[in-house]
């Protein structure tokens, strides 16, 4: 483990958690850093929607094979089991005879992953989401890396529930829905920008995120203004005042 990288990551994540930070941007950063810290090929934060669905809040890549792996876990796989048990779950040896999740294992192997981990995002007795790690190497994370992975999952929970003191269970549900809707706003903005400039979704996301950072705005606000705006010009010709 590169301890400099580890400390840099936690400093960076803590620095990002200032007033009014954007949760989706933050979770995206967290998935990116999880990859470099834990030698993963891909990562994602999946949230438990009370509608009875697991939904992706942030993923390290928009690659269709990866998104399919999140979608599949609504029916089977380590994430679903992590939600049910509240414990970290490792799916390894995808090509081997581990017959628990045949459809998931097949899709994971096809995408080039040998090991998939789901680390619970816990708030007291409630599991609100999971950090999903996808790695090419077979075999579970070693105990030291597993602790770091769990710490990253815990930071994701803190980020998600930052705004208020969450004594009330209701507040968790309120925050979770707002975060899930932010993700939808960003997807709509990605679509509009990708169509306008004939670029792919990953590139559209990067442009939106960079513009938000460079202008000190929340990613969700930039995305909402762009989707709501009458023109498809980006960056917008002049910054509009918020607060209608």
């Amino acid at each position: 483990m590169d301890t400099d990288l580890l400390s840099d990551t936690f400093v960076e994540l803590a620095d990002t958690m200032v007033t009014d930070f954007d949760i989706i941007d933050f979770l995206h950063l967290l998935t990116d850093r999880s990859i470099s810290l834990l030698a993963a090929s891909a990562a994602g934060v999946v949230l438990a929607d009370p509608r009875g669905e697991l939904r992706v809040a942030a993923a390290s890549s928009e690659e269709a094979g990866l998104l399919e792996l999140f979608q599949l876990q609504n029916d089977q796989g380590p994430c679903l089991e992590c939600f049910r048990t509240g414990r970290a779950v490792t799916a390894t040896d995808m090509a081997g005879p581990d017959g628990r999740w045949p459809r998931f294992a097949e899709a994971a192997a096809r995408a080039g992953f040998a090991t998939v981990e789901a680390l619970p995002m816990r708030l007291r007795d409630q599991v609100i989401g999971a950090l999903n790690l996808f790695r090419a190497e077979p075999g579970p994370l070693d105990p030291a890396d597993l602790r770091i992975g769990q710490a990253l999952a815990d930071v994701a929970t803190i980020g998600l529930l930052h705004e208020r003191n969450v004594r009330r269970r209701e507040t968790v549900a309120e925050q979770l829905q707002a975060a899930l809707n932010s993700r939808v706003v960003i997807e709509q903005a990605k679509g509009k920008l990708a169509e306008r400039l004939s670029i792919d979704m990953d590139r559209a996301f990067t442009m939106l995120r960079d513009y938000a950072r460079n202008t000190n705005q929340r990613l969700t606000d930039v995305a909402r203004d762009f989707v709501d705006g009458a023109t498809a010009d980006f960056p917008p010709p002049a910054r509009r005042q918020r607060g209608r």
Partner: protein
Amino acid sequence: MTGSRALAVWGRVAAHAAAYGRRPSVEDVCAVAVSSAQLGGAWVVAARGGEPDFVMYVTDPVSEQLAEVQLMLGEGPCHDVLASAGPVLAGDLGDAESVRRWPAFIPAACQLGAGAVFAFPLIVGAIRAGVLGLYRDAPGPLPGRQLGDLLILADAATVMLLGSAHGDAGNGDGAAVDGQAPDLALHRAEIDQATGMLTVQLGVPVGEAFARLRAYAYSQDRRLADVAGDIVARRLRLGRDPGQDGGP
């Protein structure tokens, strides 16, 4: 677990409408919400420009007054849910947090006999169609099971509001809701991305793009997620004139 729960909830809405011999509407959504969560009443407020605008439907006189008083005061859970894009679950209107949060609304709500108010935004990303509000006489939390059902019912009301605002009566989006098996795939990245792409292809606001996407899928008898996937993969473009929809 995907969709089966939503299917069951939509089924209750469809059954309620069928019992009255009518097409499912927000009226049926409100009735199912009230009975499934043992509430006192429900209301739907339509939004314009991201703010609550007018009361569209109420189940009872208390709901009507709860909805109207928020519009009059410009304060309350209905305003907050459109700003935060998450629900407001005020299980005890008498607690200090509620009183601090809505100093004008709380005395009025308590005088009307409401002990708890739950408000759900009728939104899809940047699309803000309105608010579903509910009240109960007795204070107390909303059980997790009921929360899931109410979120699904709010999705149903959102689709109905957007469909009736943008679809044409005969074959528009409202008809998709009318069918026995509504397309429940509301929450997929590709649907949201396709909606964003259609704002440019069709030159329409995002709410109308969403309604057109659903109407197109329905008219072609195809799954919403599949049509969205074709649009995102740039295998399908929709034309500005509804008659021109087709391949690239």
